[in-house]
């Protein structure tokens, strides 16, 4: 049975696109057939994060307007042929697509794929409404900051009003050193405030910048963020995965330091 998941946040810049790219690739690593749709019409981004920007011929709006067949617009990933991207249009705006058209498109993709991921634009206007329309469940991404959490709460309210069946929270870019010294909201605090199910915590990691520079998502790699995203993917497919200890120091040196501390 296929599932349609929207990745949303309200506030911009909290990591929706990075999350979509990593979750998409992680699910492909778990041998799932995955298609990612960049619904941010006018501001195309997901293709760059995935390193597929040079292969775009047709886009979401072309498909919806019937200028090409759906198959023609899907871009297969280099490494994972079961992972596809439907890029957004760069020169159009959000009202080029309607929620009804999105539902139709998504239902067509359900036939072929196990997971349909929708990368939602920031905001709560037309683009958000389009992205949410055909989704079965939502991943709400936030960072441990007042503004991002406030917007996430608005989004959760809107999703609940729209009767979204399942809503899970991803806390992105947490810095345990700051949490420890009391200068950042704790994971428990954020969960407490938003009161929705937590599906993942991704630490702030320089490697995300490196990965985006290279156009290769780091999911499944040895970095903490890579592991965190991989865990999220496993939880999405229904596995029970314990939350990892983000305090753990990496490498032999860190371990040695720990021993001496005791």
């Amino acid at each position, binding site marked *: 049975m296929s599932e349609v998941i929207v990745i949303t946040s309200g506030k911009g810049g909290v990591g929706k696109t990075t999350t979509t790219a990593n979750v998409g690739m992680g699910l492909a690593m778990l041998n799932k057939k995955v298609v990612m749709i960049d619904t941010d019409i006018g501001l195309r981004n997901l293709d760059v994060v995935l390193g597929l920007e040079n292969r775009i011929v047709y886009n979401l709006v072309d498909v919806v307007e019937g200028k090409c067949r759906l198959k023609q617009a899907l871009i297969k990933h280099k490494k994972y042929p079961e992972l596809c991207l439907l890029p957004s249009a760069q020169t159009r705006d959000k009202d080029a697509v309607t929620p009804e058209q999105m539902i139709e498109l998504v239902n067509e993709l359900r036939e072929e794929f196990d997971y349909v991921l929708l990368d939602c634009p920031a905001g709560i206007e037309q683009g958000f409404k389009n992205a949410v329309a055909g989704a079965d469940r939502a991943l709400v991404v936030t960072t441990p900051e*007042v503004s991002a959490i*406030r917007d996430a709460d608005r989004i959760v309210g809107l999703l609940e009003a729209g009767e979204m069946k399942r809503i899970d929270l991803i806390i992105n870019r947490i810095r345990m050193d700051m949490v420890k*010294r009391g*200068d950042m909201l704790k994971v428990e605090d954020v969960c407490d405030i938003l009161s929705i199910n937590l599906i993942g915590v991704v630490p702030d990691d320089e490697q995300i910048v490196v990965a985006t520079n290279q156009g290769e998502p780091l999911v499944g790699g040895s970095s903490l963020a890579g592991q965190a995203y991989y865990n999220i993917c496993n939880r999405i497919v229904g596995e029970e995965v314990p939350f990892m200890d983000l305090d753990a120091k990496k490498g032999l040196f860190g371990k040695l330091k720990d021993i001496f501390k005791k």
Partner: protein
Amino acid sequence: MKLMDFFRKKGSGEVAKDRLKFILVSDRSNCSPEIMEMIKNDIIEVISKYMDIDPQGLDIQITETESEGGNGTVPALFANIPIKDMKHRPLR
């Protein structure tokens, strides 16, 4: 309270948590500051019919309170209305 607590400043994470709780309660209640102001003025008008109050000292807030059924919290309107004089006007 431990002695050390006197010296320890409240971390900004704690400040963020407290602020967020307040922000979200009023966000969720869908009450804009304009509407709050209107409610406040109406309360002043009604109460002033019966007693002498201090409009400057009046403070209303939407917060959360335990629901009577014991199933979680519900939004509540709290009003603090300082009374200057309890004059008993003859009832008509």
